[in-house]
């Protein structure tokens, strides 16, 4: 299995992508399947670290949470741009000590933080595990540390480690 098809999930995802971009016919399945297998074997030549999914059941929960938060922060940042905020706004940096070490988990956390308007991933130190976050509307540092640590990191830790 691992010699012929090193990354079965990647190959399957590529095939699904191929079929959704073209059309579902035997010829396309054959062509897409061939490309998917070739790409998976090319990927194996790069020797990436293989992510271990411990509890994939939690992924929909994480996805729902993130979607909701992105909607909320879209509204928040829009109202800042429109100047609807009554009080003085100040932005700032927040250092957050992370427990998460899995590279795939960190990559997903980076995607979450980046696609949420109002927060930006600035720097991460792999030795100390400290993440430097920039927050557009900073009221309380503690609030952001708790959001990242308990809302996202705890779930990612359960999924990957």
């Amino acid at each position, binding site marked *: 299995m691992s010699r012929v098809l090193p990354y079965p999930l990647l190959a399957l995802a590529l095939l699904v992508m191929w079929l959704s971009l073209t059309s579902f016919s035997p010829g396309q399945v054959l062509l897409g399947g061939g490309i998917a297998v070739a790409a998976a074997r090319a990927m194996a030549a790069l020797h990436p670290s293989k992510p271990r999914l411990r509890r994939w059941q939690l992924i929909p929960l994480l996805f729902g949470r993130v979607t909701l938060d992105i909607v909320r922060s*879209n509204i928040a940042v829009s109202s800042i741009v429109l100047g609807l905020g009554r009080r003085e706004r100040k932005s700032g940096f927040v250092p957050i000590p992370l427990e998460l070490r899995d590279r795939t988990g960190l990559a997903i956390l980076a995607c979450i933080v980046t696609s949420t308007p109002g927060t930006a991933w600035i720097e991460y130190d792999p030795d100390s595990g400290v993440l430097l976050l920039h927050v557009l509307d900073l009221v309380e540092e503690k609030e952001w540390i708790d959001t990242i640590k308990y809302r996202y990191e705890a779930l990612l830790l359960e999924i990957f480690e």
Partner: protein
Amino acid sequence: MSHAAELPVWAALLTSLLLLVGAGLTLLGAVGVLQFRSFFERVHAPTLGTSWGTGAIALASIVFFSSLGTRLVVHEVLIGVFITVTTPVTLMLLARAALHRERAEENPNVPSRAVMRRRGSAPAPEDGAGDAAGTPSS
């Protein structure tokens, strides 16, 4: 657009609503780039366009083409996936370059490298070595 006439009313309304929301958010992001004062604030503005700006426009496309044709059209989802996965790459490149420049100029508004050391809330094994220990090299 001769096809648009065949569209049911609910789909037409939903499509235009989603398009307005998506385009509006992207516009607000662009206004934000002009309006915010520092680089690190401006970095937040375009994420309006890359999150729900993209999302709403892609959803509008899904609704429009799915209600026109007989089958579900979902490949717009791929646009959202690829934008979400690739945005952090450019954002981190820009942010780290800016941070490097500000630190080199010793701007007091930017946290120094000492911030990146672990302290306070979480127990760290190297805590006993004292806080004066050298900055970890990356």
